[in-house]
């Protein structure tokens, strides 16, 4: 049902599709769609990191390493450039390194998202960088077609709307997908054509009535979901991930409904400022705490799982305070660390089983 990322992109490239390799996470996809460019995020699937280690310190996060490994061993998919949004300092530095030192045969673009507490000036800045990026793309791919851009925004709006419906359905036990299937669906947004992706989202059936509830309901927070083996293990223990606060997931979806786009730049600006709080935007920690508590309450989550990417500075800066704040609310918290490798270590199993025991089942079968 969900295509394999590498195979899908190879097929797209063979068909002559313009493909831009994109680093996570917040960037205006609609602008790229309007120029018939397919943004393909290059931080997955994980593989061996060999060449990238020559260029990076050991304390750089595996997302940066994985992305650089892709760039250095690129299998002939990316033909329209690379885009580095300013997600964190490490990704920003990687952009400079790829552009100025390593060198690639395609253009390298940057997109500096605003950070901190937002105000009128930040909003004006965001509008400016959207227009600048539009112009940069126009210099290479020809003048923008505003009608096409408006249509791209409308398509994005439909995708957002369906994603919100599916999130709500997940929270209320009306989706029959297990955790692995659900996150594969969510992450397919990182590489699929928007029309294909919307079709895929619309294929997922939302039940009228709630299905059997999970034995234990978890809210997950972090950059990306755990790997498939870990998700299966959670499923086997009766742990359902009923809500998510992931940079690869709901942090990319506005928290309120938007009007159809009259002015695309205005629409994209509104959309950005309606995204949920996120460590990579360096906003108010208090806002993030309140948001997570509400998400836990709305989804009736009984515990919170933080899936922390090793050396991920933005997440780690917030993590300690978030854990304390959630524990004060009486929510058990489980923190796992990932290096984006497949497999499930005995230590990780022990941590997961321990929290299940803590919440009730002293003996596991």
């Amino acid at each position, binding site marked *: 049902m969900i295509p394999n990322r590498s195979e899908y992109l190879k097929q797209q490239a063979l068909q002559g599709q313009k493909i831009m390799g994109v680093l996570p996470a917040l960037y205006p996809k609609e602008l790229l769609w309007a120029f018939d460019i397919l943004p393909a995020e290059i931080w997955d699937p994980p593989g061996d990191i060999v060449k990238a280690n020559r260029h990076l310190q050991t304390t750089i996060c595996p997302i940066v390493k994985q992305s650089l490994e892709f760039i250095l061993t690129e299998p002939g998919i990316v033909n329209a450039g690379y885009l580095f949004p300013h997600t964190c300092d490490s990704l920003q530095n990687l952009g400079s390194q790829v552009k100025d030192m390593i060198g690639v045969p395609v253009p390298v673009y940057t997109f500096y998202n605003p950070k901190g507490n937002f105000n009128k000036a930040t909003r004006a800045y965001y509008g400016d960088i959207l227009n600048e990026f539009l112009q940069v793309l126009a210099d290479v791919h020809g003048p923008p077609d505003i009608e096409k851009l408006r249509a791209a925004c409308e398509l994005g709006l439909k995708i957002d709307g369906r994603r919100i419906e599916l999130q709500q359905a997940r929270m209320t036990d009306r989706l029959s997908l297990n955790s692995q299937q659900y996150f594969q669906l969510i992450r397919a947004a990182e590489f699929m054509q928007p029309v294909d992706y919307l079709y895929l989202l619309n294929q997922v059936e939302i039940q009228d009535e709630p299905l059997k509830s999970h034995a234990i309901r978890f809210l997950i927070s972090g950059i990306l979901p755990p790997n498939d083996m870990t998700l299966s293990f959670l499923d086997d223990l009766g742990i359902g991930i009923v809500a998510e606060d992931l940079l690869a997931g709901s942090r990319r979806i506005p928290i309120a409904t938007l009007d159809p786009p009259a002015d695309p730049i205005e629409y994209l600006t509104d959309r950005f400022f309606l995204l949920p709080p996120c460590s990579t935007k360096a906003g108010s920690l208090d806002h993030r705490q309140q948001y997570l508590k509400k998400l836990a309450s709305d989804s009736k989550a009984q515990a919170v799982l933080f899936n922390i990417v090793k050396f991920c500075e933005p997440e780690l800066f917030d993590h300690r305070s978030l854990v304390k704040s959630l524990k004060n609310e009486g929510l058990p918290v489980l923190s796992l660390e990932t290096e984006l490798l497949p497999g499930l270590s005995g230590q990780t199993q*022990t941590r997961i089983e321990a929290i299940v025991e803590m919440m009730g089942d002293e*003996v596991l079968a």
Partner: protein
Amino acid sequence: MSNALFAGVDVGSLSTDVVLIDSAGATRAEVVFPTGINGAEAAQKAYDLALEQGGISRDQIKAVIATGYGRAAVAFASGKTTEISCHGVGAHHLFPDTGTVIDIGGQDSKVIQVDGRGRMLDFSMNDKCAAGTGRFLEVMAAQLEMNLNELSDPRHVSGESVQISSTCTVFAESEVISLLAKHTPREQIINGLQRSIVNRIWSMVISIGIQGEITITGGVAKNKGLVTVLEEKLGMHLNVPDNPQTVGALGAAHIAQRGFKDE
């Protein structure tokens, strides 16, 4: 029910421990057996030895709970429970006012908060690095050409100390080599090593907090020097079981008993 016996089998990285208890909770047999490379085989052998030691037949055992990193390999177990829960229950059984358990094992260390029944309320775990574990001490003892008993002597922690890395066993080992090359007295190095482990444990303690009495479990609890430094750092007395290594297996046996009663 009165003749019923229960078993806890803790398959750890260094040793496999078995404790058999009766329905009154009294220990009837206790075995510590080297795990080696085959946890399943070690579990079976240790269990057989415990039965033999207690003069107990297999059918007297009503439930067996497996714990430890090799818990999934214990084919004869009726259930499995993490060592985190088991250390909490075991410590509570030995010291009923225990509110916090510090378990320092061969390859990881944990701080566990427990309630009035020994049930886990929260935990913090160091499982990514050998620093702050029994393995750290083994490596350092080898470097200092001492055995673990000599290293554990509390007299070594009463005098001067040197600063040693608490974040990495490999770095700490090279620091020790440099200190030895500079003819730093061994007592000062040992004192520094004990404090290095305690600093690592301390970071876990402050992440979840202390409540009630503190009981230390795991093989490293036999290290009197470390216990002295830890008590000094915490400003509290630590409960030290006679057999800290078998507290996990003891807890598993009690969980087996609880489960049986509940059925």
